[in-house]
């Protein structure tokens, strides 16, 4: 709780606060067997400066929530609203949502052959800021951000995510986070496939960016491991398409002990779903 009051103090120092409100969100995908509902009424409010851990079993819809919020074409919204400072973003294209300040760190970042990281990053920053950063400032900022993430400088000339190791991909996501400075960031299993050193570097990056840019974070994870490095203000349990329980950091410890089985529909267990 000491952690939380410290954050609140920081929040008061920042002039702008923003709010992301998810209300009654229902969404699903079209399958061969017909429509499949995955999000079954999601409600959540996130303010800048807050870190929300979203935990739940495999297949509960955590990633779908991340993709639906950022506008992936595969997911269709049935009902509900998502307001960013009062603007309903569900009607917006993915790039419009990004320009409003939404960022998704993907579980499996996509390779884009032939597009260099520098070209990609500069294009993205230009689009999100609305103007091209001056070349000198840009090069300095990029070098510095890469140095902090302990990334090889040659990395900038490689194609986006192509041939990157799991750890490099995740660091590349954090690099983008630090350069794009969003208002709200979703991290979809940023901790998956990371060894302990890479996990620490990535977590440091999140904490540093949070401190500098004061975004609201939704940290989607299956395991409590990353929560040792990135301290959440709230922990939510997500099961069968909705939030079923909310608490403080202590809830993560409880989940570590008890698992997710009690939140699943009767007759199903985590191991059975996997």
């Amino acid at each position, binding site marked *: 709780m000491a952690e939380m009051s410290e954050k609140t103090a920081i929040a008061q120092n920042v002039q702008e606060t923003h709010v992301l409100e998810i209300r009654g969100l229902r969404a699903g995908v079209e399958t061969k067997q017909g429509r499949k509902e995955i999000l079954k009424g999601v409600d959540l409010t996130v303010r800048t400066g807050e870190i929300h851990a979203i935990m739940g079993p495999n297949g509960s819809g955590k990633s779908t929530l991340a993709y639906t919020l950022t506008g992936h074409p*595969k997911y269709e919204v049935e009902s509900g609203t998502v307001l960013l400072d009062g603007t309903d973003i569900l009607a917006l294209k993915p*790039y419009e949502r*990004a320009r409003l300040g939404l960022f998704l760190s993907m579980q499996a970042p996509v390779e*884009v*052959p032939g597009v260099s990281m520098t070209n990609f990053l500069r294009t993205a920053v230009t*689009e999100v800021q609305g103007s091209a950063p001056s070349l000198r400032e840009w090069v300095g900022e990029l070098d510095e951000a890469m140095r902090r993430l302990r990334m090889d400088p040659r990395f900038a000339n490689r194609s*986006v995510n192509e041939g990157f190791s799991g750890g490099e991909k995740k660091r590349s996501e954090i690099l983008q986070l630090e350069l794009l400075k969003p208002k709200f960031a979703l991290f979809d299993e940023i901790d998956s496939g990371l060894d302990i050193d890479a996990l620490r570097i990535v977590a440091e990056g999140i904490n540093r960016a949070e401190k500098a840019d004061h975004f609201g974070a939704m940290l989607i994870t299956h395991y409590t491991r990353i929560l040792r490095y990135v301290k959440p203000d709230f922990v939510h349990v997500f099961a069968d398409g909705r939030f079923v329980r909310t608490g403080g950091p202590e809830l993560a410890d409880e989940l570590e002990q008890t698992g997710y089985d009690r939140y699943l529909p009767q007759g199903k267990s985590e191991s059975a779903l996997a």
Partner: protein
Amino acid sequence: MGKMVSEDEEAAVRARMPHYDSADPYKLPALMPSSADRSIRSFDPDDFPAPGHRSDEWRYAPIDRLDDFFHPFTPSGLTEVSAAFEDGTPVAGPVRFGRADAGSCPAGSVGKPVDKASAVQWQASAGAGRIWWLDVTGSCDQPVIVRLAGHGDGLDAVHLVVTVADDARADIVIDHTGQASLAEGIEIRTGARSHVNLSSIQEWQKGSRHLGSQRIEVGRGAELQHNVISLSGSVVRLRMDPDFAGPDGFLNMLGIYFADPGSYMEHRTMVVHNHPSCRSRVIYKGALDGTGARSAWVGNALILPTAPKTDSYELNRNLVLSPGAVANSEPQLEIENGAIVGAGHASSVGRFDDEQLFYLESRGIGVDQARKLVVRGFFADLIGQIGVPGVEKQLMDTIDRRLARGESSDMARILEED
């Protein structure tokens, strides 16, 4: 038969010969029916059947737009053929270039014409003395550019012979530009242990037609990187027939094409492994944009009984950027030798990758910009493998100009005019 043999003796000989068993074709791969036995090779056009939509050879091509290529003709001479080093200085030293008589250069010795169009082209070129010879006798430190500049629609024929000496290193670029209807034959022979990078670039003006046949022989222990880049023209159909002069050769074929509405791009890579321990790689990738854009790739790797330890692979990928474009892809393999290292093929025709686009869009990059980045990346990835910096720059400039066309109608008009 010079000596008389009795029927009994003949029967006895036949009984000792291995026989092809269709129920177990892989028992003796060397006995399998081979396209090498069926293929016609001749300098005489009359030896080839008339092209038709049903023939394997011509089934994808718009043959009604190519009829004049199949009948004997007198070349218009509208294609200007010249050569220089990349910096514009005349070729000198180990590089000789000039018009040649059929007798004074090895024209026709690398390979006979492989289809009706190439036999007609041979006749027309030889008859009008339209044969050129690029002879590289030693290593050169900058690329040699052979320019074929078209100056009109009249049907022309050009035959080019490229020879590279043993142990030489050379980058050679054959650059096709302008307005043309061109029947072209190219023969390429690389010396033992030579390293050659040869690119054939097609940047024709609208309405141009180009039928080409390239007969290629890779020297013993030599390495040939063969690049084909077809970016514009109404009909471009190029057939490559490479084989090897001895063991341990490496043939690396890279193909890049970009078809837009009304254009047809066909590439055939008919690799023959005739010597042991040779490697071949064929990577052909293209993008098609707009209704009526068409392409075809037909690849064959024929591994003869004489080529143990062959390692071959062929791949074709097509990126269809908008509805209404048609890409044909036909990989073939004929393996007549059981003792090979590998023979593989892969082929695909796909649309834009939604995941790539979403990734870029989720970073604030707009839809059009994201599509352009993906297409530019598709080409940049391939063009970066050519290995000749000047060529790579020229081609990326062309791609950027083509992508810019979509940006505003004013820009498009300016670009159409030049």
